[in-house]
């Protein structure tokens, strides 16, 4: 699914190095090739010699692949994936809490890996499969992680919970039989101020033991 090695000179966007720093969730080489193939994006005149592509300040029409659907959107270069998901696509389950990658409230899946959508520009998400907390529900059936959160009453105010759910999904995809320690370590990027952690750990552990969907 993911190509890990980057090819120097081909990696694309000005925030490339930044994104790589966000936890290696995005294979940089894959970003470029996919983005350039994406509809509405491959405008050669906007690709500079260094491979850095300019996006017009007034916005660019791109197609985002979100929750299995193609969603055409016009995005400005300064808009984060989080903003576009919430404000243009109505996917408000993904929350903005700290707006700088410290809380995990805006976690979404990008090609199956969890990322902070507040730290990714929307233009950079083109060509990737984005899945939000809403998209974990399939044909009205909750994802096993969501069901485990329901059964364990794993929330209080609930504002952080979409982030915890999505991160837990990614964690269990990576470690299907996650140990309690792996769960604690894996959720260290998410903050729950009401501190429903005991219930959250129980839920993720149940989802892990329950065959992981």
């Amino acid at each position: 699914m993911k190509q890990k090695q980057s090819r120097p000179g081909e990696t694309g966007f000005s925030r490339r190095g930044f994104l790589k720093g966000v936890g290696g969730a995005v294979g940089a080489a894959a970003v470029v090739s996919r983005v350039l193939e994406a509809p509405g994006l491959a405008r050669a005149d906007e690709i500079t010699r260094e491979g850095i592509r300019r996006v017009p300040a007034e916005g660019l029409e791109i197609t985002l692949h979100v929750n299995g659907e193609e969603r055409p959107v016009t995005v400005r270069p300064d808009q984060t994936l989080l903003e576009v998901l919430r404000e243009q696509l109505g996917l408000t389950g993904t929350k903005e809490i700290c707006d700088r990658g410290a809380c995990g409230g805006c976690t979404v899946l990008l090609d199956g890996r969890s990322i902070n959508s507040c730290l990714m520009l929307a233009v950079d998400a083109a060509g990737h499969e984005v899945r939000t907390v809403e998209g974990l529900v399939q044909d009205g059936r909750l994802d096993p992680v969501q069901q485990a959160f329901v059964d364990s009453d794993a929330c209080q105010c609930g504002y952080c919970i979409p982030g915890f759910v999505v991160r837990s999904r990614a964690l269990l995809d990576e470690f299907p039989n996650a140990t309690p320690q792996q769960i604690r370590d894996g959720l260290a990027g998410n903050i729950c101020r009401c501190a429903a952690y005991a219930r959250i750990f129980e839920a993720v552990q149940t989802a892990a033991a329950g065959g992981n969907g």
Partner: protein
Amino acid sequence: MTWRPDNRLALENDGSRVDVRDKVTGAARYTTDYYPEGLLWASYIRCPYGKAFLRSSKLEAARAAPGVVEVELEKQEGTYPGDRLGHICAESRQALEQGLAALALEFERDRPATDIEREKKPLETFDEDPSVQEKQADLERIFSEAAHTLERTYQTQVQTHSCLEPHNSLVDYRGDHATARQSTQATFSVRNELTEVLGLPPDKVEMHCEHVGGGFGSKFGLSPEGQLAGKLSKKHGRPVRVLMNREEEHLDNGLRPGSLQYMKLAIGPDGKLLGGRIHTWGSVGPVGGGGGTSNPSRYNFGIVAKTHQDVNLNSGFPRAMRAPGHPQGMFAVEMMMDELAEAAGMDPLEFRRLNETSDVRRAMLDVGAEQIGWHRRKPSGTWEGPLKRGFGIGVADWGNSPGEATITIHVYPNGNVEVLSGSQDIGTGFRTLLVDCVAHQLGIDRARVEAKVGVSTYPPGPGSGGSVTSRFVAPKALGAAEQARQDLRQRVAREWGVPADEVAAENGVFKHADRTMSWNEACKLIGQDRLTVTEKENGIFWKEQTGSEAVQFVEVEVDVETGIVRVKKVVALQNVGQAVNRKTVENQITGGVIQWISFALFEDRILNRQTGAMVNPNLEFYKIAGSRDIPEIVPIIWQSRPDAGVNSLGEPPVVPTPGAVGCAVANAIGVPVRRMPITPWRVLSALAERDGGAV
């Protein structure tokens, strides 16, 4: 006194909170999640420094920035970081940010007051107070008779609420009416204040807060966000959003004030507290107060002369925070209790039993000691090796007076039930309480009952403060359900042609002799659109109240080479009278414990002493306990009376934790760390100081 792990209602109601599915799928919509057509964004223009005068600004450049609708500066002088100097309104959030940048504010800074120790009046000043003078003779006697007298000062830091849903408001004024959404703990107070801003009667302003992303005391009243959104929506005739960013959350949306607490207490030869002198200082905003602490409290202190001073600093204003004054007060109290016990050569558990004011807590102390394994506690500082274990105790209680609320229930002919309250669910499980009370009293499955809350057109109810919501509302929910049950019973009796008092109505089934009628069949007898019942009296459902007593035992491990404190286990005993729903009660107990472990060990609002600016207005350097910091927590729902009412829960579980953690650390390392947060540096400093060195 009986101890059972759960009680009747809680055992019946072991379901998860009724809105959990909406919360895990993203379907639950908070105030932040609405983006109406024509939305304008607004925010305050703020002073970044503690004390500063606005020297220059590029007002016209900001007004000319693309998308900016209006920029107004209303004052030049800022007296705390985040002080509101004016406002800006724009077509989008980006335009708002660009307009603010274009404003290019330049300030002339003055030296701010940032340090409570530096700004406070000296202790001696308060000895002249009449309340001290009149006890002077007693105090002199106490100190002369005392077997031991200790003089100590404890310090606690400023804690910010850090609600994850920021303070935000969305007001849509439409001339003759308005709709508002606000993240609030008090639907009706927001609605009422908004009517004044908008110049509309209460029935023309509809306030919504169906989901609220945490409040912890900081979301009462219309507040600056609602004031500005209301004012600008009325002016422009468009929906206006004011949304605080994370920095503004820390700076200007309330905090738990810091404290310095001086205690000079004496104990007699038998180990009983005789009394003494206590003075506390609280760090508050540039004007006004609100820095009080609950010290002394809970234990039988004897004769105490207590005085307090609020110390004005150039920092944000306090707002009520989950048990205002209590966790910091009880930190000093519990630490002092352990130091006194140590001086008297007594076990801290025995010392507390001796000076305890509550029989309920004395029983809880016994159970808690057994649950944590108190016998494993060693005398302070005697643990071998670099990883040292320590044990500590904290206690609390809470008042349970009655209050007003109204509940309406609709029973539909298809057997479904709605229960309505305008009060809000801020994450405590208020919806769940309503559903479980009504389902219990009607004897039907909770899936048949839906709670509708957080809208000002629903029946009036309290704001979520002082841990009152459940206690005020539960008797009315039970009473309304009981009325509906009796109404249906009469309809069934009429249908069968028998006296109503001969018809049994239990578990949702109606019976007379060998005849039975199901809930669904009975509801078909409702001869109108629905059966509506409204209850505003407590009636027979106001039961005898408890003291919402709390006792917590904490076990820590401290690495004396790194200074790192790890909480290993907490046993949290909590009397809630009648627990309504086991999972939400336990969740709130454990959450409270973790939040105040976070306060004891990590959280700290740090001000730059030169500029008064906050150094860590974010979530990476304002450290909050996370998944790696969570100990094993054993919540124990206590029952002290077999037929108690539904009592306070929100606040009491957070009160004992910091003191218990502090005592456990002192026990582990053999020297008290008298200042929170108990960071590695402070642990190492305390050890070094004891050993005659410095870190």
